[in-house]
């Protein structure tokens, strides 16, 4: 397992998202991709991180992610046209082997978003837990769970990907 390859994968992926190259981003996903951002609630410490099992901000497969990207290609995706300016800051990367073909990759994400000429911006902080698969075409993202560090989401929509 080459940790540098994994790091490069994550940085390349972040670049594609921030540059709006969403079709190229789709190419990094396996056909059986599972992409989930669960809803969180505030609970006492004894109840753990407050992750809601049955409701998510995102719960996607290949079809639904393609639908979201196709939407952005229409001339009427008002929520992201004009586009947000985003920056995916990917840090604290840890890689764990799973089997010959798979690794689990933990990373911290700080996602900056600004829109229009407003000087205000939104920040979303999260931990991502990914499963990457080694394929003939290089590493691909097979699963991602994004655990947001908020209960109430502080941005007006999640028209952006983590």
């Amino acid at each position, binding site marked *: 397992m080459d940790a540098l390859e994994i790091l490069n994968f994550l940085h390349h992926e972040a670049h594609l998202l921030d540059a709006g190259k969403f079709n190229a981003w789709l190419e990094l996903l396996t056909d059986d991709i599972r992409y989930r951002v669960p809803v969180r609630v505030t609970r006492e410490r004894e109840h753990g991180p407050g992750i809601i099992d049955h409701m998510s901000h995102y719960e996607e497969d290949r079809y639904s992610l393609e639908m979201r990207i196709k939407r952005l290609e229409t001339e009427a*995706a008002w929520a*992201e046209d004009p586009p947000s300016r985003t920056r995916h800051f990917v840090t604290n990367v840890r890689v764990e082997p799973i089997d010959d073909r798979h690794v689990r990759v933990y990373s911290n994400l700080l996602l900056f978003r600004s829109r229009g000429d407003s000087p205000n911006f939104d920040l979303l902080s999260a931990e991502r837990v990914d499963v990457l698969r080694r394929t003939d075409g290089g590493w691909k993202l097979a699963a991602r769970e994004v655990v947001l560090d908020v209960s109430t989401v502080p941005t007006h*929509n999640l028209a952006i990907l983590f």
Partner: protein
Amino acid sequence: MTIYAQSRSGGEGTHLLEEARRQLAVGELPGAIYHDPEIFELEMEKIFARAWVYLAHESEIPNAGDYVVRYIGRDSFILIRDENGNVRAHFNMCRHRGMQVCRSEMGNASHFRCPYHGWTYRNDGTLVGVPAGKEAYGDRLNKEAWGLIPIPRLDQYNGMIFGSLDPKAPSLDEWLGDMKWYLDLFTRRSAAGLEVIGAPHRWMIDADWKLGADNFVGDAYHTLMTHRSMVELGLAPRDPQFAMYGEHVHIPGKGHGLGMIGAPPNIPLPPFWGYPEEIVRSLKENYPSEAHVRVAEKLNFVHGTVFPNLSILNVMIGRDHVHPPTPMLTFRLWHPIAPGKMEVWSWFLVEKDAPEWFKEQSRLTYLRTFGTSGVFEQDDAEMWRGITRAAGGEMARRNRMNYQMGMDHLAPDPNWPGPGVAYPLDYAEANQRNFYALWLEMLEA
């Protein structure tokens, strides 16, 4: 200096209301009502402190001790099922020094102990423990008089729990009035009732709460432009006339309203929103009247608002561009936070006794189309934000918003079997005018 003081005092808000009163009579409203600090304060005091406001669905707190923390305006309440099975709502503020006695959003508790000085309340609100009661209070504190303050009014309709801060508010029954007939369409499809899955989506929009309520009460018109991307992907109706095959219904004097759209005559959409046969069989047994069955049979898209800030959407829609449409139901609250700022609470609900495969498909349909990341709702948020930003300036006071759609040329539908005032198409703004008529009446009262 005096001139400036005068132009801003005496209540710009009040002036705006007078202007709104004059304009609404001719189907117009001043643009500034969406972003005005004085209007917002008046709304808190005159509407949110008096109206019946939606708090929760009973399925969110099924067992003794289950609670959720919910809001009316700026006040927080612990909504809890006590040990006797009664639903109660306690004002979330300790009687001693005012600390929040509950700081989590949901859970199960037999007691709440205030973290400041340790006053402890049973989940029915009774104060049962005061540290050093003997030493500090000489056993003279009358604990019975210092329980958590109950919400002034609490009631429910078909599992929908509402509260009001006004002890003199009319009954919930009266508040909902003829809207109950329409709520039955969503809430009485099965004897088992609805259940909330998971927890609500909660997110912030720099937009006025009324824009959400206004959109859902009667606005099918925006679908083709705001949601044009989804029309292009085949998730929204392609026919620009789709809302002509609908009904535009409002409850006069109550502010409530809804739009109910069916399939165009030449498009073979399935009856009853395309619900699976188990639910269709069940709704035929459980609907309170034959008219409900007749109305529901034709429906595919239904949107509505219960005044002031609860909206309902029950639509048949695709979960992506590949799969066939599935019906889904969402309740949502446009919770006012500050002038030009709201928090959206959005719940997904489904019949408790629906087949598991259907619950799952319906849930995925909901969260990909509405809610925080929904491909429909994300464009709505962009509109409401843009309006609110434009409404914050001086010119917005002069810009009259047009609410005249259908104002002079529509006649009520004599054949509509439900209550309220109905028009035989869903391209109209009678519902919006009815919504703002009560809004204005309450603000001026």
